[in-house]
């Protein structure tokens, strides 16, 4: 799950930052020659900077391989189900709300009035995909449900004082 990966990665690197600052604070009362420290740690910075740039570059390129914007490659005779979604204060107008597991679905999302957010939540209330619902623009969400169940659509962009009531359900069956 992406959320778990994001949380664990963040926790590891945040802990690393905490340890480094903690060690420096701990040793701060000791007094040592600054010239010596500069010489040693400027040299270390080259290694640190190179490592950091390499990690960031690799992670950046790796995570850019598959983007939610890209139209999936459909197999032969595998036409996606197109669902027109229109957001309106404070509800969702959808051309279809029942789907099958394994059926490729394209949500074509727009808005009638203000900016909204189209967030798809699974039965455990974990978000699995989203896009912005904007007036005058259409954003496409490509998804193939892998589990049956009742999914929720939540508004994820603040759209007015009944924003949190802007919820609907879709059903996915075997």
């Amino acid at each position: 799950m992406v959320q778990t990966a994001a949380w664990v990665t963040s926790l590891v690197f945040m802990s690393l930052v905490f340890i480094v600052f903690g060690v420096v604070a701990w040793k701060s009362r000791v007094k040592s020659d600054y010239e010596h420290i500069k010489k040693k740690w400027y040299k270390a910075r080259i290694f640190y900077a190179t490592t950091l740039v390499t990690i960031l570059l690799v992670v950046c390129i790796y995570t850019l391989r598959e983007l939610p914007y890209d139209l999936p490659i459909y197999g032969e005779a595998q036409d996606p189900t197109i669902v027109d979604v229109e957001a309106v204060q404070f509800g969702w107008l959808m051309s279809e709300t029942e789907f099958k597991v394994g059926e490729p679905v394209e949500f074509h999302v727009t808005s009638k009035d203000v900016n909204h957010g189209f967030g798809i939540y699974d039965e455990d209330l974990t978000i699995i995909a989203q896009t912005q619902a904007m007036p005058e623009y259409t954003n496409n969400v490509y998804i193939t449900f892998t589990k049956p169940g009742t999914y929720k659509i939540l508004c994820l962009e603040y759209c007015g004082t009944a924003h949190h009531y802007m919820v609907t359900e879709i059903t996915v069956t075997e």
Partner: protein
Amino acid sequence: MGAFVGMNNLKSTNKTVATSLTIGGVIIAVMMIFGILMLLAQGGVIDVPDAMFYQFLTIHGTGMIGAAALAAAGVMWYFLNQYVELSRSIFNWFLGLVIIGVILVVIGVFSFEFAGAWTFLYPLPTISASAWGTIGALLYLFGMLILGTGFLLLYMDTGRAIIKKYGSLGKGLGWDVISGKKKEEDAPPKAVVASTMVTIVNTTAILAGAAVLIMNIINVINPSFTFDPMLAKNLTYAFGHIFANAIIYMAVIVVYELLPKYTNRKWVVNRVFLIAWTMSTAFTLVIYTHHMLMDFAMPKWMLIMGQALSYANGLPVLVVTAYGALMIVHKSGIKWDMGSGLAFLSMFGWTVGVVPAIVDATIVVNHVMHNTKWVPGHFHMYMGLGAVVMLFSFMYYLAKVDSTVKESKIDRIALWCYALAMISISVQFLVSGALSTPRRWAIHYPGWMTPAVFGAIAGVFLVIATTIFIIHFVRYMKNRGKLGSDKYEQKTA
């Protein structure tokens, strides 16, 4: 280059700056209370009407950024004024316009129920589903415009003064040193480099903000005047992202100035330092698109650049500023007090906040994290544990060098209390984000409530600690000018 100028009117200068810090500090504390109320409502502990919740949301976001920017501008002005000649009268105009702007915003939100959030995403100010009317929207939008005008005036003055002394804004960033035309020893001071960066980015931000505010104002008055909502969103986030980011670039000057004094070590301006600040200038201007990664209709290359450059934007702080701060403190024999302790804590806050920010700027992560509470998680670290702590550090520093007010054990307890509370608040937001909890929701489903309650409890301790910081500063305000100098060296000599 280190010569101080404009020292004649130190006492009144300190008063002007301290006023911006006091107003900023008090507003921040009040905004924290709104934050606690929202968390309690989300946690199901108290019942807050929907409209009121979103008014709190609007004032909390606007007030926090506005107040922190006001106080950070005071910090920047204080140090920059030691190297270039700034106009105190313009700073007073700036203060006056900001106060007028704040009053209009408060009236718009609480008297006329405007609840369009700080993002006021077009066309929400006009299409409110009858939650607020034209007057409320106009008061808020005009308030923001006046507030922005105050800041623009200030940056026009800082830009003027830097150009007058150094020749151009490029030279203020040390481009002649980077290109080798000038020696590193002749590089501009850190306060000048940072102020130049902020002058450039915030002037741009305010112009973008003014454009979208004016377009919204016209749309509110005459709804038949419409404009492209995607353009509006770009302008809004260009304004909001840059303006919020610039707070830390103004406030960090206190870290640059304090740590060398406390450690008696030089924090030299070299080419690497200057290149890092030029990188920050460029990246801060363009990476706002990471707020729009879920706007699939945006040009794809802009969104990919949004991720790549957000990653790169972490480098100047991780490799230069934070690393420099760690080096200067490491085995320095530093004597910790509130000023130095808060400065060091703020660098930790800034650095640690970079991690979840970079994670969220990753498009595939953003696909399931955008507009969840992960986002406030990272910016509460960056703002609450970074930028705002820098402001408190400056408050204690100024009190130390310009008065006889002593720090007490209570202040030191408050520092630890603040740090632990702010870490707790940030982490509960991150946990909520990982649990897919949407942000800006007046209610939470049962599975999302616990972290919110935890955050509210931590928030109470945060307010207590902040109040102690502010009381110390108010005591300073009453005993100000007792030493007659703000030069730390003179006091410790």
